[in-house]
């Protein structure tokens, strides 16, 4: 498709065409993510609604399907208020810093066997670096707001994200040892086979810990102490209104999709099909073969877990969050790293027989 475009654009100099094509590819990734974010918010309200025996939003459009559009228009039309005594530049910069890393990380996610924006060698490292940058939006927002609630929320969030990044990083190291590569495409290829050869089984504790740390990294319930409505109003974004607030909202949901996508890539084989045996059957083979629809399906599964957890669990107390991260997750990940390394060295079948 892009080769065809390139032949039409031969009158332009080569660097310009390349830049143009990369821009088109970025837009092709960002727009579906933004739509997914909008409808994830809708799904969240619906799912939590049904869990609480309500219907959820059902007034705007058929069965409420236009609700996210209405919300977006409302937020766009609202006034952005900058409080007195706020650091104006940082106050405006903070939402951008929150959203930027959440979108930039998508550059290395493989959607299909050849469908990836930047197929870089150090993909896993890049993901780890970018997910650790999201915290700046929150800290800067909390500080620049010049409000004690916002500041308390920012401090809680900073401590929490730095703590949970460590078990998360160790879980990624486990994936790295198992796959023998930092490239996300290679990590998926290393899981090829059937659902039992995917890494969720040999790396089971890391799989669970990665997803729970992901909950903590995105400040989602039950780890949402940085918002903590009942204690510190709304935490770090209490002073934000209108589109600036909407950007924080977008960043939170984009991060959720990001964590779900990463979990499915690293532990559930990304775009690999669980029914690969039926891939050669004529018509249904298209569905049972590998493809982006499996990636989307697995990602949605984890997104549903995010919503389910929010409706189910009460908020963690702060000291217990810290205890869970440092005293429970960290030792388990370190022990399992040793186990994974041993499994790789002794080539335990079926996962590491050929490595």
């Amino acid at each position, binding site marked *: 498709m892009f080769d065809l475009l390139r032949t039409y654009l031969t009158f332009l100099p080569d*660097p310009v065409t390349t830049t143009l094509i990369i821009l088109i590819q970025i837009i092709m990734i960002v727009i579906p993510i933004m739509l997914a974010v909008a409808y994830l918010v809708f799904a969240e309200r619906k799912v939590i609604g049904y869990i609480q025996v309500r219907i959820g939003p059902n007034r705007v459009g058929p069965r409420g399907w236009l609700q996210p559009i209405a919300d977006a228009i409302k937020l766009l039309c609202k006034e952005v208020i900058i409080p007195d005594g706020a650091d104006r530049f*940082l106050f405006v910069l903070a939402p951008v810093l929150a959203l930027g890393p959440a979108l930039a990380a998508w550059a290395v996610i493989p959607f299909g066997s050849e469908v990836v924006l930047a197929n870089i060698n150090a993909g896993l*490292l*890049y993901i780890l*670096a970018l997910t650790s*940058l999201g*915290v700046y939006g929150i*800290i800067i927002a909390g500080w620049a707001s010049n409000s004690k609630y916002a*500041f308390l929320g920012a401090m809680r969030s900073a*401590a929490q994200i730095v703590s949970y990044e460590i078990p998360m990083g160790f879980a990624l190291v486990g994936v790295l040892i198992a796959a023998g590569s930092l490239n996300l495409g290679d990590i998926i290829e290393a899981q090829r086979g059937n659902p039992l050869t995917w890494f969720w089984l040999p790396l089971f504790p890391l799989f669970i810990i990665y997803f729970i740390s992901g909950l903590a990294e995105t400040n989602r319930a039950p780890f949402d102490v940085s918002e903590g409505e009942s204690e510190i109003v709304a935490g770090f974004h209490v002073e934000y209104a209108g589109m600036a607030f909407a950007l924080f909202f977008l960043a939170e949901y984009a991060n959720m999709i990001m964590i779900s996508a990463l979990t499915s890539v690293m532990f559930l084989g990304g775009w690999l099909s669980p029914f690969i045996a039926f891939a050669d059957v004529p018509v249904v083979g298209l569905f049972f073969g590998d493809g982006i629809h499996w990636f989307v399906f697995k990602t949605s599964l984890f997104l549903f877990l995010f919503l389910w957890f929010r409706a189910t669990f009460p908020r963690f107390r702060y000291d217990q969050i810290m205890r869970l991260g440092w005293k429970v997750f960290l030792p388990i990940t370190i022990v399992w790293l040793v186990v994974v390394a041993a499994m790789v060295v002794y080539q335990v079948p079926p996962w590491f027989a050929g490595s």
Partner: protein
Amino acid sequence: MSVEAIVFYVFASALVFAASMVITVRNPVHAALFLIMAFFASAGLWILLEAEFLAITLVLVYVGAVMVLFLFVVMMLDINLTVLREGFARYLPIAFVVALGMMVSLGLIVGKDNFGLDAVGPAAKAPASYSNTEELGRVLYTDYVFPFEIAAVILLVAIIAAIALTLRPTRQTKAPNPDRQVAVKRGDRIRIVKMDSEK
């Protein structure tokens, strides 16, 4: 000018700008944020040198972890800037001399004689499949395994020392112990007493 040269000058000027802002801005939080910008700019330069592992690790470790804690502390400090800036003019001449001395000695060490193109030669362009993460790992765990392990042990000692210095074992916390909470059985909490009903 080639694209690489343009990219280099953009990152290099951003780095110099950010570094000079770190020491000149009044607000310590702004200074810390400029330091982050300096880290990003130097990471960009390292990417240009095809050292992607070092570049991403710089962002991961310094920007992602160290500077978060740095900001954490700086934001909570109540710094009186006028007291801090007292005597600035008085110490300026001697500071200038020290800075000049450092710059000259740095120039002598990393200058043209030791690191110029005729002394080192331009780096060979590696193919796209070359992974310098793998190469670094290979060297670190073979040729340099003892220095690497010694550095790790020194860091461990530093961590233990830092914790030992700040630990106050006599402090009594009233926090409940989750292990004991989870291990509680029904029999530990209630006792059912059978009594004859009143007549």
